[in-house]
């Protein structure tokens, strides 16, 4: 934990990396300097495009050919990596510095057992014989707390869970006791409970070995959880650096202030809800069973949603929270009838739509609209956003001119320039596209708006804006909103009611204050306990 005056394991001095010509800026990274001391975890935080991953790849010497370091030096234990030959870099990787990646499934070779992959590292870099290597691998697998190391040794990556795979990556990275570990968003692809375990593991391992860690993340919760020092990046420039406590509680730069203020609090705000609105949506014992049966295979049955009872009134936001595979999106897609539910009933007002035939369903489609997670894939890239927005109303008989008038109004509602209706989706940023998707949904004048992880792909500052917009629209149009998210902080801020789902079932259901304040179910408690940075209240700073 201590950061006394030891020689830093990593020293980045005045590093600039240029982008190929034609990019939106000249430098991916510009004049960045920082150090990582032994036993220290330094977090690089920034939104997408801030250059944090570029720094990591530059340190590892894995930079894409189009990017070129133009100035500065990177000293690993005093040795300049930028000047090192390819052979020397190969020697350094794994022995002195290692890297773990965001997606452990793609970082591991699917046709080699995990043991063989770690063995490859040892075989390349050490002169140990087979038995010694195996002993060392079993030992490191035990150290990253994988159960039954012998079995894991012989397992293929697909046989392990996401968390276990990330542990394999960590084992591989640490097997030769490097002085520097670079972790590039290592927990972003993992569920929150798994993330908590991995963060704990990284902290323990580096503390025991005195490894310096350069940890890259976009999540301030993770920062609060793990970092000793924080470096904030924006557009390739380091805007602020300091001890975690200072940066999080007394940031100086306006950008840092804005970022930290944008992090939603995990404590739900008190929201006044009129409990007298008419019920817009009610589900009764809604269930979805997937049964994949091939001609030659045994039938596999997956119960994605079981006995889900929900109801939403006008002007209310119901959140469904849960980890991946909990069935929350399945429920949303059943309600939107993008998939057909296997059992149970869905009442839209008084109309039962769960078993309705496709032809009869069409008039009711208008009443439920959905906004998806990925703003880059939610709109047809080949048609203008105006065409996308007016498509729905025109399907229901609105004349083209009237539809365009409506679209222009909606563009104003979502705070976009109405004159940009004739542009194509690729000309907008992620947050802007998500607003266009909201406008497209609103064009149908729905009674229920489903937001399926609608802000999960967005940077925290943009996320905040979209959340504010959604809430504003809900109030103004008195909409019912079904908000699907894995992010407890987001749920705490936007939901009146929360349903917690696990393994297809709703395990806890109540008002947000009640569920967050005094969770009753064990799973809910575990979920909240795992939320990164839950003990840290992110301040709201006046934006500059």
């Amino acid at each position, binding site marked *: 934990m201590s950061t006394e005056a030891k020689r830093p394991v990593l020293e980045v001095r005045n590093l600039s990396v240029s982008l190929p010509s034609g990019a939106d800026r000249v430098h991916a990274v510009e004049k960045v300097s920082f150090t990582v001391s032994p036993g220290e975890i330094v977090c690089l935080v920034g939104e997408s495009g801030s250059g944090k991953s570029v720094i990591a790849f530059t340190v590892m010497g894995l930079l894409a050919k189009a990017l070129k370091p133009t100035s500065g030096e990177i000293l690993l234990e005093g040795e300049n990596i930028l000047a090192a030959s390819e052979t020397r870099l190969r020697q350094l990787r794994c022995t002195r510095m290692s890297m773990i990646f965001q997606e452990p499934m793609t970082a591991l070779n699917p046709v080699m057992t995990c043991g063989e992959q770690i063995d490859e590292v040892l075989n390349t870099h050490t002169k140990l014989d087979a038995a010694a290597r195996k002993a060392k691998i079993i030992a490191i697998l035990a150290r990253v707390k994988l159960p039954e190391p012998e079995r894991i040794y012989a397992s293929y990556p697909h046989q392990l869970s996401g968390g276990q795979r990330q542990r394999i990556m960590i084992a591989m990275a640490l097997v030769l006791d490097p002085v520097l570990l670079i972790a590039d968003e290592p927990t972003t692809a993992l569920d929150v409970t798994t993330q908590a375990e991995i963060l704990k593991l990284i902290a323990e391992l580096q503390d025991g070995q005195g490894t310096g860690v350069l940890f890259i993340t976009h999540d301030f919760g993770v920062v609060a959880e793990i970092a000793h020092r924080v470096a904030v990046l924006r557009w390739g420039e380091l805007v602020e650096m300091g001890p975690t406590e200072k940066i999080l509680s007394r940031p100086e730069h306006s950008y840092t202030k804005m970022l930290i203020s944008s992090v939603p609090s995990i404590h739900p705000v008190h929201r006044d809800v009129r409990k007298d609105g008419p019920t817009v949506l009610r589900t009764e014992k809604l269930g979805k069973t997937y049964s994949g049966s091939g001609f030659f295979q045994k039938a596999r049955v997956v119960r994605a949603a079981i006995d889900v009872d929900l109801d939403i009134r006008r002007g209310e936001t119901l959140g469904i929270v849960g980890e991946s595979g909990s069935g929350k999106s399945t429920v949303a897609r059943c309600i939107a009838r993008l998939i057909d539910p296997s059992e149970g009933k869905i009442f839209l007002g008084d109309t039962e739509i769960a078993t309705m035939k496709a032809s009869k369903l069409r008039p009711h*489609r208008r009443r439920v609209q959905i906004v998806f997670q990925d703003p880059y894939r939610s709109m*047809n890239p*080949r048609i203008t956003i105006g065409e*996308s927005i007016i498509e729905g109303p025109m399907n229901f008989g609105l004349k083209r001119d009237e539809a365009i008038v409506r679209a222009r109004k909606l563009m104003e509602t979502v705070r*976009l320039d109405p004159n*940009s209706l004739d*542009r194509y989706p690729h000309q907008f940023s992620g947050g802007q596209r998500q607003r266009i998707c909201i406008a497209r949904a609103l064009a149908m004048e729905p009674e229920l708006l489903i937001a399926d992880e609608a802000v999960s792909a967005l940077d925290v500052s943009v996320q905040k804006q979209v959340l504010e917009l959604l809430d504003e629209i809900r109030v103004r149009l008195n909409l019912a909103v079904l908000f699907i998210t894995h992010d407890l902080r987001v749920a705490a801020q936007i939901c009146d009611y929360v349903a917690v789902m696990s393994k297809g079932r709703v395990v806890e259901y109540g008002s947000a204050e009640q569920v967050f304040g005094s969770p009753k179910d064990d799973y809910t408690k575990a979920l909240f306990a795992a939320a990164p940075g839950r003990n840290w209240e992110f301040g709201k700073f006046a*934006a500059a």
Partner: protein
Amino acid sequence: MSAISEDVVDSASISAASTKRRSLWLLAIRNPNVIIGGTILAIMLLIAALAPVLGTIDPTRIDPAGRNKKPGTEITYKLDDGTTAKRVAIMGTDSLGRDVYSRVIYGTRVSLAVGVAVAIIAVLIGTIIGLISGYVRWLDGFIMRIMDGLMAIPGILLAIALVSIWRAGLITVIFAIVVPDVPRVVRLVRSVVLTVREEPYVEGAISVGTPTWILMFRHILPNTVAPLIVQGTFLAAAAILVEAALSFLGIGIPPEIPSWGNIMAEGRTLFRVFPHNIFFPGIFLALTVLAINIMGDGLRDTLDPKMSKKV
């Protein structure tokens, strides 16, 4: 907070990034492979169109006096009105005294017609079946098993069977080549449909009540255009080769119609003594197929980078 209004689209700032999609086609026509292949192909098309004015004579005209002349021989022709005329047979004559140059030039028409017709017909039929198969899930298994069955039929065997039932001719040949090609297009279109139908924008269109046929033609079909163009060029090249092979075997285009395969078939018996009968149509055949393949490669690299090695 004023953060939202800051994000309002500034029309001027985003106009710079416009028309990315259209420039893909511009990129394609600048690709050196497309330029080289396209140029050769354009020349071939010109030759086919201008065949009568390229110094040719009737390609079916038999001249017993001028049989098996080597390339460059001067031949005296007796014209219909009784007068005589001299002309140099630059590619020689065949065993019936027909002018090989004229036959090769006219043969271009048959080859290109077969290539283009097969590509267009196979793509059209395949696209319709592929769309249905990819979109109507319960029909998928049934359709695809039929397609698997069709793919198992070799084009040449099918042609032999068809010629023995119908009469030999251009239509029969095209039909025989199209049948085993259709499943390839179906598979391609189906795979695109299966991927695209899961895209959120397609689901978004479903949830705003878009009728199925609009969904298919507006949101799904355009995604198949680029891979289909690429596939179409390869189908055309293969079809030209198969037509030549069928004609060479004597089961394709009737021998009186000049096609490259026919010319080579005719020259086969005397190949050792008079190789020019096979050499010239062979050159044209190879050049055309090469040009189409090069162009297809170039189109694939630019329009469908996922399929090419270099991204």
